[in-house]
């Protein structure tokens, strides 16, 4: 069965610090990969996605993620965080064939202090 692990449950950073949130998945087949963000009181919004091609994908608000197939990882990065990045971040995976359900990680709460 597919599963997604996010190792950082709660990350606290100061503004301008660099961010990397880990995401690993377990599934032997071809996958689509996503990062969603949930700002306080708002809905889940897509940050970025990987379907195929260049494993380094760029998303909104300066975020990027790198798919490393050999490590089953899709870590999220941002070189310099802002206070407005305070939110919960969810990694999600779906298998390309046979299903379109998303499997989510447990989420990482990011708090950025000015």
């Amino acid at each position: 069965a597919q599963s997604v692990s996010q190792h950082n449950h709660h990350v606290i950073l100061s503004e301008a610090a660099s961010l990397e949130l880990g995401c690993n998945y377990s599934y032997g087949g071809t996958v689509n990969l996503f990062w969603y963000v949930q700002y306080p009181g708002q809905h889940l919004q897509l940050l970025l996605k990987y379907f195929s091609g260049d494993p380094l994908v760029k998303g909104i608000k300066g975020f990027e993620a790198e798919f490393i197939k050999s490590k089953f990882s899709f870590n999220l990065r941002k070189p310099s965080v802002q206070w407005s990045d305070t939110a919960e971040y969810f990694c999600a995976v779906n298998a390309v064939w046979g299903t379109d359900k998303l499997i989510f990680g447990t989420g990482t709460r990011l708090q950025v202090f000015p």
Partner: protein
Amino acid sequence: EPEVTQTPSHQVTQMGQEVILRCVPISNHLYFYWYRQILGQKVEFLVSFYNNEISEKSEIFDDQFSVERPDGSNFTLKIRSTKLEDSAMYFCASSEQGGNSPLHFGNGTRLTVT
């Protein structure tokens, strides 16, 4: 930007009562989903719906749950006889092309069963 809208934002009900959670997906989307998130836990897939029928459901989605698209715009989730453990945030989502396109989520309905 078009949005998925969910009503109500918060529903309180007594154990054993029926509840209907409502969603209006984005108008040109063809695939519809319900997910839920119990407080402190992962976002979990419940059901996917395409072409007026369930295309996939999880083991959570037992006989107490049903979905319907009654009028071509609304997409509802019914829980026939609520249990305490049904208390969660329920998210509706829609997508253009199923698993190979990103999901757009609503703000969620917080269901509290007392």
